[in-house]
C-alpha cells in the first residue's frame, strides 16, 4: 500500500468520490429526462460544482445544518438526503422528500440538517444564522453553512446576515459558490469588488477563496474555518470559484457563454476527473475502485429514476394538508 498524501483516509476519499459521482449522475440524468419532457418545473443543475458540496459536507454531521439555494441537488446529496426521495420529489410524486409538494427548488430534510433548497436568492443566510444561534443555545457544537451564488451575494439578506453572524459570533460559514454567472449575467458586471474575501472583511469576517474544482482545496479551507467556528471562533466566508456545466436552468440556450466554454471546462476543469486523476495517480485509489463506484452509482440513479417514475402521485387530499400544525 502506498503512502496516502491526502488529508483524508482512503475510505473517506472513496466516500467523497461517491458523493460527487452521485451528484454528477443525478444531474446528468435529470438533464436527459428533462429534455424528454418528463420533469415539470424549473430545474437548476449542479453538475460541475460537485467538489464544493462534497468538500464542505465531508466535515459535517447531522447536527450541522445547511441552507441551500435554487441549485440545491448537490447540497442535498452531499448532506445525506436520500437520493430516491429526491428523485421522486423532482417527479412530483407522493413518495418524494416533500411528498411532491416542494419540487426541485424546495427539497429539504431537517433530520439530516438540510434546511431546504430555496427559491428565493439569499434567503438561507438569515435562516442559517438562526440555526447557528439554536446550536449555540443548545451547546451542541453544531455549525451552520449557508450557500449562495455570486449573483445572490448582492442580496441584502446575505449582507445583513454577515454582520449579524459577526456581532453574535455565530458558528456560520458563508459559502459563495462563484460560478461566474447569475442566470446570464456575469459576476464581473454585477459585483463591484473583485474578491468576496474583501467584502467579508468589510463585515469583520475572515474569508478565503479557493478553486472550487479542487476538492482538496475546498476540503482543507472548509475544514479549518468550520473547526474554528465549532470551537467558538466565529463566522467566516469561503468563496469557491467553480463551473456550471449546464445552463442556468434546463432549457437555457447559454448564448451568453463564450464559444467552446462548456467543452473546454468539461475537458479541463471537471472536478471529478481532477479528483480521480489525483487519487489514482498517487496510487491511493485504483482505477478499478473508481470504476466500481461509477457502476454502483449509475445503478443507483437508474433505480431512483425507475422508482420515481413508477411511484404514486399525491392524492387530491394532499392539496389541503400540511399548511399548519394545527389550525
Amino acid at each position, binding site marked *: 500500500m502506498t503512502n496516502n498524501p491526502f488529508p483524508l483516509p482512503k475510505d473517506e476519499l472513496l466516500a467523497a468520490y461517491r458523493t460527487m459521482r452521485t451528484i454528477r449522475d443525478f444531474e446528468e440524468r435529470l438533464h436527459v429526462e428533462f429534455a424528454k419532457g418528463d420533469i415539470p418545473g424549473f430545474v437548476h443543475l449542479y453538475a460541475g460544482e460537485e467538489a464544493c458540496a462534497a468538500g464542505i459536507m465531508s466535515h459535517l454531521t447531522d447536527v450541522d*445544518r445547511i*441552507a441551500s439555494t435554487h441549485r440545491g441537488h448537490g447540497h442535498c446529496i452531499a448532506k445525506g438526503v436520500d437520493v430516491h426521495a429526491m428523485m421522486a420529489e423532482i417527479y412530483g410524486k407522493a413518495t*418524494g*422528500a*416533500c*411528498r*411532491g*409538494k*416542494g419540487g426541485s427548488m*424546495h427539497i*429539504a*430534510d*431537517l*433530520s439530516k440538517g438540510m*434546511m*431546504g433548497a*430555496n*427559491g*428565493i436568492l439569499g*434567503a438561507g*443566510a*438569515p*435562516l*442559517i*444564522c*438562526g*440555526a447557528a*444561534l*439554536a*446550536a449555540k*443555545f*443548545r451547546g451542541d457544537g453544531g455549525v451552520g453553512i449557508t450557500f449562495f451564488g455570486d449573483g445572490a451575494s448582492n442580496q*441584502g*439578506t446575505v449582507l*445583513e*446576515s454577515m*454582520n*449579524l453572524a459577526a*456581532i*453574535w459570533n455565530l458558528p456560520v460559514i458563508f459559502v459563495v459558490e462563484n460560478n461566474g454567472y447569475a442566470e446570464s449575467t456575469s459576476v464581473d458586471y454585477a459585483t463591484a469588488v473583485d474578491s468576496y474575501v474583501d467584502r467579508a472583511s468589510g463585515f469583520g469576517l475572515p474569508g478565503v477563496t479557493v478553486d472550487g474544482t479542487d476538492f482538496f482545496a475546498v476540503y482543507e479551507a472548509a475544514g479549518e474555518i468550520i473547526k474554528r467556528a465549532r470551537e467558538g471562533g466565529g463566522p467566516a466566508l469561503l468563496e469557491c470559484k467553480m463551473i456550471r456545466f449546464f445552463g442556468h436552468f434546463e432549457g437555457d440556450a447559454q448564448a451568453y457563454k463564450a464559444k467552446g466554454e462548456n467543452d473546454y471546462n468539461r475537458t479541463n476543469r471537471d472536478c471529478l476527473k481532477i479528483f480521480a486523476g489525483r487519487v489514482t495517480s498517487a496510487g491511493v485509489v485504483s482505477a478499478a475502485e473508481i470504476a466500481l463506484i461509477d457502476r454502483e452509482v449509475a445503478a443507483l440513479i437508474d433505480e431512483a429514476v425507475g422508482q420515481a417514475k413508477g411511484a404514486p402521485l399525491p392524492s387530491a387530499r394532499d392539496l389541503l*394538508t*400540511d*399548511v*399548519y*400544525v*394545527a*389550525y
Partner: protein
Amino acid sequence: MARKISMKQAINEALDLEMRRDPTVIVLGEDIVGGAGAPGEIDAWGGVLGVTKGLHAKHGNRLMDTPLSESAYIGAAIGAAACGMRPVAELMFLDFMGVCFDQILNQAAKFKYMFGGKAKTPVVIRAMVGAGFRAAAQHSQMLTPLFTHVPGLKVVCPSDAYDAKGLLIQAIRDDDPVIFCEHKALYGSECDVPEESYAIPFAEANVVREGKDVTIVSYGLTVHRALEAAETLAKTGVQAEIIDLRTLSPIDWDTVIESVETTGRLVVVDEANPRCSIAGDVAAHVAQNAFGALKAAPQMVTAPHTPVPFSPVLEDLYIPSADAIVAAANKTTARALAA
C-alpha cells in the same frame, strides 16, 4: 389572583412566564434590552416603549438586542424556530415588514407545506400596529390584512390586557408562525388580569357585548369604538352584539355566523384600509354563508383608502369612529326600525 395591569405589563408577564416555563423560548429585537455595548445602564430601554423592560434581569442573555437588520434577525428567529427553539422576535412597528417580508411570506409561512409536512416553525413575531400616536404614514398602519392573506401564518390582535396575556402565551406555545399585533394605543389600557398563566385558544372570538339587533365585528382598538357605539345605539333602542375576533387567522367564523343568524344585521369595523381588508373578508364570508339570515346590506367601517396622515386632526378622522359605527349600524337597522 387578578389585578389591574396594563396591556404592556400583560405582555411582559406573558413573556416572563413562558421563558420560565420553557428554556427554548428566547426573545430578540431592536433595543428590547437596550444599552448593548453602551457605557450607561443595561436594560436601558426594554423596547422602544418599555414593553420588555425588566426581563433581562430575570432571563439574561435569552434576551438579545439585534442590529437594525430586520431581514437577518427575523429570519434568524425563523431559522432557530425550524431548529427547535421558540423565538419571540420583535419587529418594533409592523410597518417595517417591507424590509423583511420574504422571510415571513416565503420562508416561515411555507416551510411546513413545501417540505411535505416535515417542518415546524414555532416563531412569534411581535409588532406594534395601528394609528393614534401621531406617528404618521410609516409607523401607524394596520397591516393585518397582508398577513391574514398568507396561508401558513396565524395572525392575532388582542383588544385588552387580559387577551394580550392569554393570546401571547398561546402564540408562544403554538407550533405555527404567529404574527402578534399589539395596538400601541392600547398599551396603557388596563383591566383585570390573573397573575397565573393561562392560554386563550385561537379562533375563539369573544362576544364582548350581547345584543339582538345588529352584529358588530371588530378587533384591536376599534372594539372599544364599537363598544362606545353600542352605548349610543342602546339609547335609541338598538341592541348591538359586539364580537372581538381576537385572532384573524384562524378566524372564528362560527361565532360570527351564529350572531348574524340571530341579528340578521352585520357591521364590520376594521382599522385597516378598505381594499382586501378584514372588513371585506368578514362581510364577504357572511354574505356567502349566511345570506339567508341577512336582513340588510352588511356594512363596512374602515379607514379610508389613504395613508395615515400625521396631523392629529386628520389622524383622528382616519381611525373609524364610534359615530361612523353608529351610522353604519343605523343603516342596517333602518328598515327594521321603520317597520
